[in-house]
């Protein structure tokens, strides 16, 4: 569904991605893990058109998106929930959600239906619909960011560190939602996480990124068993607790 082939990205003269290749098949949850500054966020930004690859190929559903503007990529069905949530803090929750459907402003009935659906997924957002988004807790802001992305009716979601700064219980809630979205809507997910254990537990496959290169890839359970992965990425979050299974 999404495929990167030999993608190079530079920030100025500094390479951030070096010949990165990865693919996500329809209906899959794929985890992209790696340490600080490995290039995970850059990979997602390249897919959604916010940074341009210097070289390589990015296709979504067979179509070259590497020259498409970010709003065309959203319109094509690929939505990105950014690192740090980036909700529009002064705007009310409901405006944040409605703006997620900016490209569908002709379809008022559909937007209203999806708004109800997002409120169904996240009842807490319905309660707080008139509050400025900045007043929400971290977990609620993450739900809002996901809800905003869903309002564009994507077929695939790019999720950048949804667990960042959240308590384990809230993280579990978010992760089980991801699993549920895949099960109920067939949503395809590329999930970036520092919390590698939890990400690999809900994922079908995974990629490990290190200093801009893919150094390992494979089925998620094999990566979880992999000695190198365990040593480098799973050591310190062994107490992350039970995660939802698929």
């Amino acid at each position, binding site marked *: 569904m999404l495929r990167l082939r030999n993608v190079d990205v530079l920030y100025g003269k500094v390479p951030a991605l070096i010949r990165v290749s990865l693919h996500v098949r329809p209906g899959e949850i794929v985890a992209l893990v790696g340490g600080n500054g490995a290039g995970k966020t850059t990979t997602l930004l390249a897919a959604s058109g916010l940074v341009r690859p210097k070289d390589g190929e990015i296709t979504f559903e067979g179509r070259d998106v590497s020259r498409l*503007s970010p709003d065309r990529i959203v319109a094509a069905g690929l939505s990105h929930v950014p690192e740090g949530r980036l*909700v529009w803090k002064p*705007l009310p929750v409901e405006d944040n959600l409605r703006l997620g459907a900016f490209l569908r402003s002709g379809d008022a009935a559909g937007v209203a239906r999806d708004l109800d659906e997002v409120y169904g997924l996240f009842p807490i957002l319905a309660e707080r619909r008139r509050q400025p988004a900045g007043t929400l807790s971290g977990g609620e802001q993450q739900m809002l960011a996901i809800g905003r992305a869903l309002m564009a009716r994507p077929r695939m979601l790019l999720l950048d560190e949804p667990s960042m700064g959240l308590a384990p219980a809230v993280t579990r809630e978010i992760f089980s939602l991801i699993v549920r979205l895949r099960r109920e809507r067939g949503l395809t997910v590329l999930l970036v996480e520092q919390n590698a254990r939890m990400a690999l537990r809900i994922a079908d496959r995974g990629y490990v990124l290190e200093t801009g290169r893919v150094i390992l890839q494979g089925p998620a359970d094999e990566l979880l068993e992999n000695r190198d992965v365990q040593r480098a990425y799973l050591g310190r979050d062994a107490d992350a607790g039970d995660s939802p299974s698929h």
Partner: protein
Amino acid sequence: MTFSDYLQFLLSGLTVGSTYGLTALGFTIIFNTTGIVNFAQGEFVMLGGMLGVFFLSGLGLPLPLALLLAVLATLLIGALMERLTIRPVQDAPVINLVIVTIGVSILVRGIVQIVLGKDTHALPPFTGSAPVSIAGAAVQPQSLWVLCITCGLLLLLRHFFSRTLWGKAMLACAFDRKAAFLAGIGVRRMVLLSFMISAAVGATGGVILAPLTMTSYDVGIMLGLKGFAAAVLGGLGNPFGAALGGLILGVLESFAAGLLSSAYKDAFTFVILLLLLFCKPSGLFGRRGFERV
């Protein structure tokens, strides 16, 4: 000094302050969507007045049509400015873009000077010039036009930014540009729109004030500076604070001119601006912790 003298100062201050306010509003609309302080904003005001004169006397069009065309033409010029000078270098640091706007303002002033001349012009008042008496103060009917049109425009923009999806999308670009891109909002189009709205708002200010204060190719400099002062006074980034800042500035100026001496009128503005920058850099109505991207 009597009550009616004070009322007189107040009303003439509000009238001039309306133009400062509309100029300031133009500053904030562009600043909000782009982070750019557009130093060509004063030229939009000048273009409104000068093009109005041109369409009226040069082409002999009826007044309402001439004024409408002047505003629309300035709106197009704002769009051209964005397309030709901002978009090609949009990824440059903001400070470079600010310098580009200074270049544009010099260019626009030069072209108007060559094409329309250096003379000072006045537009006729919209509905006669016999002063109306309000509680002993003599008021030009044009002042009432200025106040009403300014209020109307403020209400319209308020509705746009707080009730319409496009208005909210423009705000979203200001609050978090990256999130706006990722939500599928055409940020480039919003930037273009912000230049068009700012140009039209500025030109409207120019058109309604020209019957009272005369206009010429170089009025944009001072109006731009006053508008900028008003925008800073109101807290750059807050459109309605900016408009209010303009009104306050106009009234203060009018009282300073009336009670002290009109020679200090302009200096007065900048003393206020400096004091404010020292004491409360976020402006009178600036939101604390307002994040810029």
